[in-house]
């Protein structure tokens, strides 16, 4: 019996049901932990039960009742114990899980009344089973700060009456956007940042992919879920090629494409296609389609830039944002004409909404470098260096600055 796999696979579902039954996040988490300990002890001896999840839920529920009985304020807990004992009267582990329980848990962790960073932390803690220390390390905050954040979030769920429900059909699309955003944030935290503990960061990307796979199993017909899964698989497929031996960032153009994960690309491409067919041009589906075009190019100079620029133009029209505008400008520069891309970047600069974002001057510098306007490129690389916060990106910009500064 591989308990690690079991823990991973059964924990979210068992916890989701326990939270519904016990109406208390902390009690559910502690009781489930105890049930796992009991399983490790008993299953190798007695054999694993036919339905491990039902066994865990039933055992954890009895552990929770014991815990409440042992609690100091026993009298105050009488009503709660009576309620729990009544609903737990059968000693047979009947399967009490509902597929909806997991969706309830996901929508509750990602409730918009919680701060976004609390949504992310709560999702990693309850759905992915990461420890407070692991989450704190991933987000570069001290563990007590992260613990406090989680306590506050659980407190608000309880005291403000955040429901443990799947939202009604009038709200579900809007709320699902929030859930997908949280998953995407988890992935980006692991993917974009290269500082900190590399293992924890790898884990975050894997957890995000696991989460969106879980969502897909629960909501198989929602095309944006397929789109997000496609996007994450395609981005993650380049993982081994993104950093060189020294830990420096390797741009898409310079990556060794033989290191890309072809199986993951194939799965991502199929999902991207499904997402585009099923739901039209969703935010994630379009980005997945762009990532798929990059993945299809065997060499950098075989990249279908005109098609990528066209997809970015569509993305910009349907889901406008300054960052999408910047990506569109860069794709136009690569696919059509450098000077047209430069003009678009200058328009974004003039609008001012991306001031302070290092990738704006970095993209401008890149185009100026390709145009051979080295002095102007150096100025832009310097302003990017003034804004960049990540070490690997800083080293990349410094290398480029040296290149354009060398030999006049």
């Amino acid at each position, binding site marked *: 019996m591989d308990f690690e796999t079991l823990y991973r696979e059964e924990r979210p579902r068992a916890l989701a049901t326990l939270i519904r039954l016990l109406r208390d996040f902390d009690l559910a988490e502690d009781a489930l932990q105890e049930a796992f300990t009991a399983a490790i002890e008993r299953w190798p001896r007695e054999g694993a039960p036919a339905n491990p999840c039902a066994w865990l839920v039933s055992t954890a529920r009895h552990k929770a009742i014991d815990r409440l009985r042992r609690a100091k304020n026993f009298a105050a807990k009488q009503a709660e114990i009576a309620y729990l004992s009544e609903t737990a009267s059968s000693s047979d582990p009947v399967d009490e899980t509902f597929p909806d329980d997991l969706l309830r848990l996901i929508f509750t962790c990602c409730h918009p009344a919680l701060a976004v960073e609390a949504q992310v932390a709560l999702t990693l803690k309850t759905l992915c089973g990461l420890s407070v220390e692991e989450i704190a390390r991933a987000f570069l905050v001290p563990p007590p700060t992260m613990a406090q954040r989680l306590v506050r979030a659980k407190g608000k769920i309880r*005291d*403000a*009456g955040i429901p443990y429900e799947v939202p009604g059909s009038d709200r579900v699309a809007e709320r699902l956007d929030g859930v997908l955003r949280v998953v995407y944030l988890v992935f980006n935290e692991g993917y974009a940042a290269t500082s900190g503990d590399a293992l924890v960061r790898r884990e975050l990307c894997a957890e995000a992919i696991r989460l969106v796979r879980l969502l897909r199993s629960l909501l198989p017909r929602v095309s944006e879920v397929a789109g997000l899964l496609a996007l994450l698989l395609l981005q993650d497929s380049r993982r081994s090629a993104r950093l060189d031996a020294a830990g420096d960032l390797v741009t898409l153009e310079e990556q060794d494409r033989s290191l890309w994960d072809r199986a993951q690309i194939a799965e991502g491409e199929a999902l991207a296609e499904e997402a585009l067919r099923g739901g039209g041009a969703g935010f994630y589906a379009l980005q997945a389609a762009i990532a798929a075009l990059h993945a299809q190019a065997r060499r950098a100079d075989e990249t279908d830039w005109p098609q990528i620029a066209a997809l970015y133009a569509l993305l910009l029209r349907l889901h406008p944002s300054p960052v999408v505008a910047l990506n569109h400008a860069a794709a136009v520069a690569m696919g059509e004409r450098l000077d047209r891309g430069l003009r678009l970047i200058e328009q974004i600069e003039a609008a001012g909404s991306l001031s302070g974002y290092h990738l704006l001057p970095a993209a401008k510098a890149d185009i100026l470098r390709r145009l051979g306007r080295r002095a102007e490129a150096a100025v832009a690389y310097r302003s990017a260096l003034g804004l960049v916060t990540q070490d690997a990106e800083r080293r990349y910009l410094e290398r480029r600055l040296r290149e354009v500064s060398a030999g006049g």
Partner: protein
Amino acid sequence: MKYLLLIYENEKDFFGLPEAEQGKIFEEYMTYTRNIKKSGNYIGGEALQPISDATTVRVKNGKTVTTDGPFAETREQLGGYYLVEAKDLDEAIKLAAGIPASRTGSIEVRPIMPTPPID
């Protein structure tokens, strides 16, 4: 659960409106109140006079100190409230989104802290 829906709005914006416009908004509030009474969510609610009529009271060293005006000068001011009964935060948010000022100002949703009855 009980929730207090606090209605914040820029008073100057409201009082700067022509009288007919103000009347229309009052009518909207009356319709809204009637609706949440019918649905059983309504417990209470009032509109407040503007902050120019506010007095802030503090007791310092046993002495009552009063100052003219609100507790804090902010861009939006508390203009009124509804006390409602809702089954959870999602229902309270839905009720808050129905208040006319949610389009022009903001509604703060505060759960009421359960306290033992006092007789």
